[in-house]
C-alpha cells in the first residue's frame, strides 16, 4: 500500500484545518497587550516632503506613538536588495523604510501611527499634516531611461539601475544571413500579484532579553530573519521569524519589506507587541508588482522556418527602489531563457533595469520567464505568419532534439533533460490540431473568427546551485536542508527550511517519506515556517520547494535507511550487506518473515539498549542539499479563442496544457498547480494590468478596478502530462509551480492574434480588452 502512496493523488493533509476555519494566518493572531500600526503613504508619485506635523495625530484617542522618517534614523538601516547583478554597473540607491526628504511612488511610507486599536490607528492617520512639493513623474520604463526624464535618484543617471547583456553566437551574422526578419514591441504590462491574504506582520520585542519575534506573511522566513538582522542590527540568533499559515504569495511575499522593519521598530520603541496588516488597496500600492517590461525584439529566420537568432532590447521597470530580488528577475531569470525550446545559433539581449515612480517590482509567478517565453513564442508565430508556415511546423523544425542529460544552449546555460517534440505532439494530437485548423477555415467563411495559439516553453526552476547563485550576484545560497526525526513510537517529524503556503508539501513530503521508508503518510508531520524549530533554508519560490527541499528530505531519509540497515543487521545477528529492505521492513536475505519494521528500528535506536559498537543513539538525520544544476521543466499549451469582431470581445473557449515536470509525487496537486498557473497567466492577456495616470496615481487602485480572473469567465482547463526525469535530482523531480503562468500568457495571446490576423490586426498591447480590440479591428478596416 505504501509504495503506491508515492505518486498517487491522495487528499491533502493540510486541508482539514483550512476547510474548518481553524488555520491561523498572521492577522488571526492576537497577542496580550498588542497594539496596532497603520502607515501613512505618500499620495504623490514623486515629491519633496516639505513638512510633517504629527502633533494632532498624537493626541487622538488610543494613539500611543507616531513616527516619521527622522525617528528611524540610527535605528533602521536602509532596506537592502539581495541580488547584486555583476558586470551590469548596478546602482543601489538607499531605500529608507520611512521616507524622510523625498517620496518616489504613491505608497511610499511617510509615517506610522501605533494605537490601541486598528480603527484608532487609521483614524489618526487622517490627522497627520504632511506637506509636499510635487516633482515630475515618469512611469513608463522606456520613457524613464531617456535623456531628460525626471531623475528619481540623484546618483542614477537616466534612472538606469543596470545594463545587463546576454550574448551568444554571432548575432550580426544571423541577421545578415536571414531571409526573414520579424520585429515587435511587446509591452508586458505591470501586474499586481494579488495573493488573497494581504501582507501582515506582528513584531514582539522583549527588551529584557533582546529577543525579537516577527510573525510575517513570508515565503521565506529564514531570509526574513537574515534581512531583519541586517536592517535592525538585532543579532540573527536573537530573532525568530514565524510564517504561520500564509495565504498565497506568488512571489509577492518573498521580499523583505519596509513594513516589517517599521513594525519591528515600533515594537522595539514601545516595548509592546505591534501588529500591522495592509488593506487590499494598500497592498496595491505597497506590495510588489510584477513584469513591467517594454521589449523591443526581433527574430532572424530562413524562409523555410529555421530560427537564426533573437535580438532584444528590454526596458524593465524596477519601481522606485530595488526590491529584494528585483534585479535578478529581468536578467538571470529572463535573458538566459531566450533560447526557449529551440536550437538557436545566436542571441543578443540588452536589458536595462530602470527606476520608475511606481511600486517596486519583484518576482511574480514565473518571474522573468513569462516575459522571455512571450518574446520567443510571439516571434516564432510572427515568423510563421511571414513565411506562411504553420506555427506547429516551425516549432517542430527548431526544437532541440530529445536529450536525457545536459544540453548547452547559446545563452550559456545547460538544460537538464527535455523532449519538446513529444509534448507538442501530445498536445496537437489530443486537441486534433489539424481538425481545429479546418474548423477555423470553415467558421471563417461564416464570418466567425476563432484563433488557435500554441506555446512551447521551457523554464529554469529548482533554484539552484549555490555556487551559481553566488556567481550571478544573489546574496545568499540556494540550497535547502531537512531534519527527519523518528520518535520512539515510530511517528515522524520532518522539519524543513522552505516554507510552503498552499503548494501542499505537508502532503507530498509525507509521500516522499512513505516512498523512501514505508511509513504511513498519516504518521508524518511536516513542520515548516518557524526559524526556531526548522533548519536553515532559503524559502519557497521559483518552483524550487519539491525540487530542492524535497531532495533534502530524500537525502535525510536515505541516511536513516542506511543506519536502519546496520541496526537491523545487529538486531537480526546478520551482516549489514545481507539485509534487504522492502516496504518499511528490513530482513535477512531469504527470511522476509523475520524482519524489523522501520518502527521497530526507530524504537530500538531511540532506546539505545542494544546498539552496534560506535553507533550513535536516536533515529534522526539531517541533510543539506545543494542541487548540481537547475531543473528545466517544459511543455506545450494550446489555447482556442473566439473574437467577436462587432464587440471586440475575446472568449477563451478551450485550453489544453501538456506539461513535463519530471516525476510527479502527487498528480492531483500537480494538476491543481497547472490550473491556477494557467489562470494567472490568462488574466494579463484578457483583463489585468496596473494603470497609472500621468501623475503616477494608480488608477487600478482597488480590487474593484483591477480585473482579476473570475470563475464565470473561464473554461475548464484540460491537463495532460509527460514524464522526462531530471537526471540530477534524486527523485527525477523538476517542479511545476510556475509552468502554467509561463505558458498561458503566450498561448492565449498567440491565439488572439491568430484570430485577429484575418481582420488585419497583427499586434495589440495587453490586456486585450474589448475596446482595444474593437478599435484595432476598425482602424484596420479604415486602412490601418
Amino acid at each position, binding site marked *: 500500500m505504501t509504495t503506491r502512496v508515492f505518486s498517487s493523488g491522495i487528499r491533502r493533509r493540510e486541508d482539514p484545518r483550512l*476547510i474548518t476555519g*481553524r488555520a491561523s494566518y498572521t492577522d488571526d493572531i492576537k497577542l496580550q497587550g498588542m497594539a496596532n500600526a497603520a502607515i501613512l503613504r505618500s499620495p504623490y508619485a514623486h515629491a519633496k516632503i516639505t513638512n510633517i506635523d504629527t502633533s494632532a495625530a498624537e493626541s487622538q484617542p488610543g494613539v500611543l506613538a507616531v513616527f516619521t522618517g527622522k525617528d528611524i534614523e540610527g535605528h533602521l538601516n536602509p532596506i537592502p536588495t539581495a541580488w547584486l547583478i555583476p558586470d551590469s554597473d548596478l546602482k543601489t540607491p538607499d531605500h529608507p523604510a520611512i521616507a524622510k526628504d523625498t517620496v518616489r511612488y504613491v505608497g511610499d511610507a511617510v509615517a506610522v501611527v501605533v494605537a490601541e486599536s486598528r480603527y484608532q490607528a487609521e483614524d489618526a492617520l487622517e490627522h497627520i499634516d504632511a506637506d509636499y512639493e510635487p516633482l515630475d513623474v515618469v512611469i513608463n520604463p522606456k520613457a524613464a531611461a531617456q535623456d531628460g526624464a525626471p531623475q528619481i535618484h540623484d546618483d542614477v543617471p537616466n534612472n538606469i539601475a543596470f545594463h545587463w547583456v546576454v550574448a551568444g553566437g554571432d548575432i550580426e551574422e544571423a541577421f545578415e544571413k536571414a531571409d526573414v526578419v520579424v520585429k515587435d514591441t511587446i509591452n508586458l504590462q505591470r501586474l499586481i500579484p494579488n495573493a488573497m491574504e494581504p501582507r501582515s506582520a506582528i513584531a514582539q520585542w522583549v527588551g529584557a532579553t533582546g529577543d525579537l519575534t516577527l510573525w510575517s506573511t513570508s515565503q521565506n522566513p529564514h531570509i526574513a530573519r537574515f534581512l531583519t538582522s541586517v536592517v535592525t542590527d538585532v543579532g540573527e540568533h536573537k530573532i525568530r521569524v514565524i510564517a504561520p499559515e500564509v495565504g498565497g504569495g506568488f512571489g509577492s511575499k518573498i521580499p523583505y519589506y519596509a513594513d516589517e522593519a517599521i513594525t519591528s521598530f515600533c515594537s522595539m520603541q514601545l516595548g509592546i507587541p505591534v501588529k500591522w496588516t495592509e488593506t487590499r488597496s494598500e497592498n496595491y500600492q505597497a506590495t510588489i508588482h510584477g513584469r513591467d517590461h517594454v521589449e523591443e525584439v526581433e527574430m532572424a529566420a530562413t524562409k523555410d522556418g529555421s530560427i537564426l537568432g533573437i535580438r532584444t532590447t528590454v526596458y524593465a521597470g524596477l519601481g522606485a527602489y530595488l526590491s529584494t530580488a528585483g534585479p535578478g528577475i529581468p536578467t538571470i531569470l529572463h535573458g538566459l531563457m531566450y533560447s526557449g525550446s529551440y536550437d538557436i545559433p545566436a542571441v543578443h539581449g540588452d536589458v536595462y533595469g530602470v527606476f520608475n515612480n511606481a511600486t517596486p517590482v519583484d518576482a511574480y509567478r514565473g518571474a522573468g520567464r513569462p516575459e522571455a517565453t512571450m518574446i520567443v513564442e510571439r516571434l516564432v508565430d510572427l515568423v510563421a505568419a511571414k513565411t506562411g508556415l504553420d506555427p506547429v511546423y516551425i516549432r517542430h523544425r527548431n526544437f532541440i532534439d530529445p536529450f536525457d542529460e545536459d544540453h548547452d544552449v547559446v545563452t550559456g546555460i545547460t538544460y537538464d533533460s527535455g523532449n519538446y517534440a513529444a509534448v507538442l505532439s501530445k498536445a496537437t494530437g489530443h486537441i486534433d490540431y489539424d481538425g481545429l485548423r479546418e474548423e477555423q477555415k470553415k467558421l471563417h467563411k461564416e464570418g466567425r473568427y476563432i484563433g488557435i495559439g500554441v506555446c512551447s516553453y521551457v523554464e529554469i526552476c529548482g533554484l539552484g546551485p549555490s555556487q551559481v547563485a553566488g556567481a550571478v550576484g544573489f546574496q545568499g545560497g540556494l540550497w535547502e536542508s531537512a531534519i527527519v526525526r523518528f520518535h520512539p513510537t515510530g511517528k515522524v517529524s520532518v522539519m524543513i527550511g522552505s516554507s510552503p503556503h498552499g503548494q501542499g508539501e505537508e502532503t507530498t513530503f509525507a509521500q516522499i517519506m512513505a516512498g523512501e521508508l514505508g511509513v504511513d503518510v498519516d504518521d508524518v508531520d511536516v513542520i515548516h515556517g518557524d526559524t526556531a524549530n526548522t533548519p536553515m533554508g532559503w524559502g519557497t519560490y521559483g518552483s524550487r520547494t519539491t525540487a530542492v527541499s524535497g531532495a533534502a528530505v530524500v537525502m535525510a531519509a536515505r541516511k536513516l535507511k542506511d543506519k536502519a540497515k546496520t541496526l537491523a543487521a545487529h538486531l537480526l545477528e546478520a551482516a549489514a550487506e545481507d539485509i534487504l529492505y522492502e516496504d518499511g521492513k528490513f530482513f535477512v536475505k531469504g527470511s522476509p518473515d523475520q524482519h524489523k519494521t522501520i518502527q521497530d528500528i526507530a524504537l530500538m535506536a531511540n532506546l539505545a539498549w542494544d546498539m552496534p559498537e560506535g553507533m550513535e543513539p536516536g533515529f534522526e538525520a539531517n541533510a543539506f542539499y545543494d542541487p548540481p544544476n537547475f531543473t528545466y521543466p517544459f511543455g506545450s499549451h494550446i489555447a482556442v479563442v473566439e473574437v467577436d469582431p462587432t464587440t471586440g470581445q475575446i472568449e477563451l473557449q478551450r485550453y489544453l496544457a501538456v506539461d513535463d515536470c519530471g516525476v510527479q509525487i502527487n498528480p492531483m496537486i500537480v*494538476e491543481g498547480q497547472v490550473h491556477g498557473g494557467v489562470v494567472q497567466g490568462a488574466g494579463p492577456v484578457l483583463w489585468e494590468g496596473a494603470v497609472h495616470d500621468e501623475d503616477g496615481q494608480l488608477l487600478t487602485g482597488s480590487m474593484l478596478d483591477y480585473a482579476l480572473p473570475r*470563475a464565470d469567465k473561464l473554461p475548464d482547463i484540460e491537463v495532460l502530462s509527460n514524464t522526462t526525469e531530471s537526471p540530477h535530482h534524486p527523485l527525477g523531480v523538476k517542479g511545476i509551480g510556475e509552468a502554467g503562468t509561463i505558458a498561458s500568457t503566450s498561448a492565449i495571446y498567440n491565439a488572439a492574434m491568430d484570430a485577429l490576423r484575418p481582420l488585419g490586426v497583427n499586434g495589440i498591447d495587453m490586456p486585450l480588452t474589448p475596446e482595444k480590440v474593437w478599435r484595432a479591428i476598425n482602424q484596420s478596416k479604415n486602412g490601418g
Partner: protein
Amino acid sequence: MNVPVEITINGKTFSDEVEPRQLLVHFIRENAVLTGTKVGCDTSQCGSCTITMDGIGIKSCTTLTVQADGSSITTVEGLSNGIELHPLQEAFWNKHGLQCGFCTPGMLMATSELLRTNPDPTREEIRAGLEGNICRCTGYQNIVLAVEEAARTMGG
C-alpha cells in the same frame, strides 16, 4: 457612542457594545474571536468574508455590526463541529478545491448559499454563482468540481 448588540454566531450568543461604524466581519473576528472568516479586500470584491445571516449568504465586510443585531449568523466554524465534516467541506477536500486556503471559508459559505438557492446547479451555474468570490490559487476548476460533488452528496 457605542451601541449594544446581541448576535448569535454558530449557536452562541454574543452581547457587546460596538461602534456604530464597526464592520460585521470585525465583530466576528475581534469580538467573537472567530477568525475563520477572512478579510481579503476593502471593496466587497473578493468574498473571503462571506457568511450566512439568518440563512442567507452575505459579505460581512459590507455589513455593519449594528445591522446584524438580533440575527443568527453561521461562519465557516459553524458548518461542522470540526471533527465530522460537512459534505461541502468533504467535497472541497476530496476535489482539491483549495490550496492556500485563505479564500476557502468564503468559498464554502458562498457555495452553501448557491446550493440553498439552486440545489442542483449546472457547471455554468456554479461558475456564475461563484463569480463574487476570488481565488488566486486554484483557477476555480477544482472548486467547481467540489461544488458538483457537494450538490450530489447533499442530494440536490
